[in-house]
């Protein structure tokens, strides 16, 4: 809701505080925040930038504020989507009722690179596939939220949610006594509890959780080590693990110790060289055998990427209805599947107004933002589209809402999205009130991906 002075009511208290601040003091704070991030080592490797291996993601000190009632609706919508996606994955790897019913074209599964035959005829512990989900949401109007991507595979960025809050608390403690913001700091504890609740039935006693990282050269290594530290669990690499007594076990100073739940940040293809890419040195040979024998939980489950396919995304409202009998609470962005001749025709003739994405892509790579593209880029992309239409979907350019960021010249509007994090276990879906707000720092830009030069800000969900 906006008042006469153009301030959203959720921002009223913050705005009062902000107008009393001295701009120079804030600029200094902003520099302090950056120094703080550098010290903790929170950096991000940007793929495709040869000269900048590691880079700090810019942090904006103006929080993005969400009211309690907005959040309640969002959380309900995410809960519904996440439950439907888990039911969908179980179905796809077992009875495939949704294909038999003709709700989803078989082709989308048969030709889906993320579909893993090795998951057929198997139920992971607790029937949970997506232990951690980071749903990307954008807002286009007062009550209009759209889901951009479900990120059921390996959502990253939760460390920013936690670090951004920590930084805000350190820099502006007075703000948090003035405004009541819901806590996010329980996330690591909740993550550990949620993962423990997914331990295999064969596990007795308190489950041992570990995080598997590809190692220090991975762009998200900071997050892996941060989470391990915050959760109080071991951070391991493939070469630390082997199969011992029927379990995956890690080398410790007291010999090998069984792992019950492995939160792996290694992609499916590299997870088990005995099963998938034989040249992988990042994975654990035999882990899929132990998995199918019921002696370890792999989070997220292998093969969940099927749900992240952008052509499958376009069917999520149908998927929700098929498995829950309910209408989707959160909207999908209208999606033209270029595999369909009419959609391809429409896309080609409206290319300059559309966003075109690769169906298997992620991280904002290989996509075309029509309104921002040059004539040449448009015609080159049109050729790619015509050559491999199945590879693409197109979406209208949304008029994303803006939120204020702090600049040298004062507050300025920028486009944002929001990635809340949901934890799934047999005990239910737990959504942390907050998330990662990514902001396009260039005026007018719609691309918020950190790999494409976006920044982040703290996300506040207000108490009542």
């Amino acid at each position, binding site marked *: 809701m906006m008042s006469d002075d153009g301030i959203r009511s959720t921002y009223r208290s913050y705005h009062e505080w902000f107008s009393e601040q001295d701009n120079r003091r804030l600029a200094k704070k902003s520099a302090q925040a950056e120094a703080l991030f550098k010290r903790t080592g929170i950096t991000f490797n940007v793929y495709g930038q040869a000269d900048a291996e590691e880079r700090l993601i810019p942090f904006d000190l103006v929080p993005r504020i969400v009211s309690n009632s907005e959040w309640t609706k969002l959380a309900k919508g995410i809960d519904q989507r996440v439950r439907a996606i888990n039911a969908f994955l179980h179905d796809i*790897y*077992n*009875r*495939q009722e949704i*294909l038999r019913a003709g709700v989803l074209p*078989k082709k989308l599964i*048969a030709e889906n690179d993320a579909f893993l*035959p*090795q*998951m*057929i*005829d*198997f139920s992971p512990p607790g029937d949970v596939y997506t232990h951690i989900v980071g749903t990307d949401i954008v807002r286009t109007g007062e009550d209009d939220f759209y889901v951009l991507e479900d990120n059921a595979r390996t959502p990253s960025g939760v460390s920013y949610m936690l670090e951004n809050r920590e930084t805000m608390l350190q820099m502006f403690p007075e703000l948090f006594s003035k405004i009541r913001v819901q806590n996010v700091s329980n996330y690591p504890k909740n993550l550990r509890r949620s993962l423990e609740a997914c331990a295999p039935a064969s596990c007795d006693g308190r489950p041992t959780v570990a995080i598997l990282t590809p190692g220090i050269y991975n762009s998200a290594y900071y997050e892996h080590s941060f989470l391990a530290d915050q959760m109080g669990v071991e951070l391991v690499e493939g070469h630390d693990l*082997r*199969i*011992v*007594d*029927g379990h995956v076990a890690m080398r410790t100073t007291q010999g090998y110790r069984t792992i019950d739940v492995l939160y792996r940040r290694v992609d499916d293809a590299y997870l088990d*060289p*005995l099963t998938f890419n*034989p040249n992988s040195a990042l994975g654990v*040979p*035999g882990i899929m*055998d*132990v998995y*199918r*024998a*019921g*002696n370890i939980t792999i989070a997220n489950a292998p093969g969940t990427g099927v749900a992240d396919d952008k052509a499958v995304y376009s069917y999520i409202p149908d998927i929700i209805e098929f498995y829950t009998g309910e209408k989707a609470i959160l909207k999908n962005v209208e999606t033209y599947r270029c595999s369909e001749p009419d959609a391809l025709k429409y896309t080609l003739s409206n290319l300059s107004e559309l966003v075109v994405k690769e169906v298997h892509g992620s991280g904002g790579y290989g996509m075309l933002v029509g309104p921002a593209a040059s004539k040449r880029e448009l015609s080159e992309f049109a050729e790619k589209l015509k050559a491999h239409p199945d590879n693409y979907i197109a979406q209208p350019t949304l008029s994303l809402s803006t939120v204020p960021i702090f600049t040298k010249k004062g507050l300025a509007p920028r486009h944002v999205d929001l990635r809340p994090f949901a934890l799934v276990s047999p005990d239910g879906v737990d959504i942390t009130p907050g998330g990662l707000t990514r902001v396009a720092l260039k005026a007018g830009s719609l691309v918020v991906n950190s790999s494409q030069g976006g920044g982040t800000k703290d996300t506040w969900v207000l108490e009542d």
Partner: protein
Amino acid sequence: MQLQISHTTHYQYDKPVDYALQRVHLRPMNMDIQEVNSWALEIDGGRIEASYKDHYGNHSDLISTDPGVRTLAITATGIVTTRDTSGIVGKIYGRAPLWHFLQTTSFTVAGPKIRALSKIVKQSDDHLSGLHALSSAILESVPYKLGETDTKSKAEEVMGIGSGVCQDHAHIFIAAARAAGLPARYVSGYLMMNDRIDQDASHAWAEVHLEELGWVGFDVSNAISPDEKYVRIAVGRDTRDAAPIKGMRLGDSDETMIVSLQVQQ
């Protein structure tokens, strides 16, 4: 027919091995056409870490070596009663959908030579006779010969080499059947040859799915459909899914493998 099988795979390493894994398919499935009367898997120099059914319903075991071993012996022994169904396995389905068996794999890519062969199936009056004709045509252009190909040879490549073993025949047959639009799969197992007890190696053949009959087996190498002298062990889209043994080991030791296989009545 009651078949008695003893199958030992013996690994010898030139240096002590710290850690090695073998994923094995060495337990026959119980089904309408074959009844497993008794079966045992024994490991010398290692242990079974996991026993489970894989995504095709194959009995699978993961075996690890004991630390520092120089030899590992895996022995499967047992008795299986088989029936002759003229190669018809029937309408028995696991969870893996039929379309999955239409998909090509790196071993079963149909190049120009295999696509040409697959026309035999399309041109025949019915699929069954077409597939038998295909089987004969493959054996004619790729006669059985040891040592010309290896376990990594791809179907189309073998067509160029001009001779091969049962694995190659099965791959070519599968590739051609899929190119003709029929779901096809690879089968590994045992075959009792009439003239001998000691067999050179475990056997491989193919199965194709036909609307009317369900799955039907074709053994290109022996120019027949499997009868009561065959024991099915594992299926998959190609040898990588169904091979009896697949392994990895840490370190730089070299291994020698000796297989001893007896199949008798």
